[in-house]
């Protein structure tokens, strides 16, 4: 399984692997919002946590089809299906690779891009923490969506349509936790819910995703 992880990581980082694309997209979105909403510091500060969360979410979406598509097309997925690792393990590892190459950079970059939107001081910590807890859920939920659509030639748009509604609870609790933390309010509830969603997604969705992959590989 480690071998699979290193392989996927190396593939992602190579040229053409799409590494950094998500980050660039995140930066663009963060820069675009002030153009649309106006440069008023207070307005931006108020919406910054939410925008950062939405931007991170959309950036995650970009690289989701890579999780299985390439391996599906060249037959490696069939091989993985017959390998000694259970399919669920393969799914988990691939989702982990996606998180390391897409989610984690977003977590690190978010506070920096937050400065573009006048994120208040406490925001730097809270955005980092909430995204750190929440992005694994995004990768795992995304992997499920990718497993559903892996058999489709141009399933990118459909993938977004399927995955974005599934992202809503994570987004709500993540952005809420960040916003409340910044305003100095009690935010344990959304934080715990966010953690719960991540844990449940990581524990349970590999089974659903593996089932979808098996269906598509028939």
């Amino acid at each position: 399984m480690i071998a699979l992880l290193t392989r996927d990581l190396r593939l992602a980082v190579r040229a053409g692997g799409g590494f950094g694309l998500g980050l660039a997209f995140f930066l663009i979105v963060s820069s675009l919002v002030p153009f649309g909403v106006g440069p008023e510091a207070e307005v931006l500060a108020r919406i910054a946590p939410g925008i950062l969360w939405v931007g991170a979410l959309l950036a995650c979406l970009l690289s989701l089809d890579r999780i299985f598509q390439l391996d599906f097309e060249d037959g490696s997925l069939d091989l993985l299906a017959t390998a000694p690792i259970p399919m669920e393990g393969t799914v988990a590892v691939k989702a982990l690779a996606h998180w390391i190459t897409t989610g984690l950079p977003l977590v690190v970059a978010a506070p920096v891009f937050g400065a573009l939107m006048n994120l208040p001081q406490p925001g730097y910590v809270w955005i980092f923490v909430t995204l750190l807890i929440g992005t694994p859920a995004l990768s795992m939920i995304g992997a499920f969506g990718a497993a559903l659509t892996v058999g489709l030639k141009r399933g990118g748009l459909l993938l977004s349509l399927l995955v974005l509604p599934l992202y809503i609870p994570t987004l709500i609790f993540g952005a809420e936790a960040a916003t409340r933390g910044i305003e100095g309010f009690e935010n344990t509830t959304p934080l715990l819910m966010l953690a719960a969603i991540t844990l449940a997604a990581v524990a349970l969705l590999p089974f659903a995703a593996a089932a979808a992959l098996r269906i598509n590989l028939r």
Partner: protein
Amino acid sequence: MPEMRRIKQRQDRYNSVWEWANPIKFMWFSGVALPWLVGLTVLLMGVGLVWGFFFTPEAVNFGSSVKIIYVHVPSAFMAISAWFMMLVASLIWLIRRHHVSALAAKAAAPVGTVMTIIALLTGAIWGEPMWGTYWAWDPRLTSFLILFLFYLGYMALWGAIENPDTAADLTSVLAVVGSVFAFLSRYAVNFWNQGLHQGATLSLDKEENIADTYWIPLVIAMVGFGAFFVTLVFVRTRTEIRKRRTHALEMRERMADA
């Protein structure tokens, strides 16, 4: 020689949809039941809606707008029930492989979607005089918006996949996982709205003490909408079964000509 065997195997698979007892039994049963269902639907909806519209008084605070309850509540209730039925049908397909079940879920989706749209529209129209705005991110309305998105995704997935059995399997998995998230979203949205807005969450609450004068025609209308749903799903499932049979026969024709 091996090609001939493979072709025969594929033919047998396409035969199996129709040769199964299930679709045949369903076609027979639904054929008999449909006239009754249609009659029941017309009766219940007619009575419930006409009564609700013409023969109920104006309400305190709501005025005549309370009458919107007769289209908003039944459609909202059906929007949720339809999704629940799709969930159950999907589970039956995944576990017991009854083709009719999978097709029934597919058939129910458009009806459920229309119910959701009606719920959203009537909710928004009712909202304008009540809250002064066509849309408010009230937890209930927001949940219906999310449900609408789930319906769209489900139907889009059915449409995107060519192989009928693969489509049935994948959409069923989506329905199951989606249901969990839909339930979770309801809770999340409740939390989300209470947190940010101190404004009064409006109470279009069905559990409010509704006087009998309003309640009885409402129940009749709700059952009527339910009968409407069942009727349409029966018809649509028959259509799906016929389409599958046609598809299977076309495949066989093509094999025979090849």
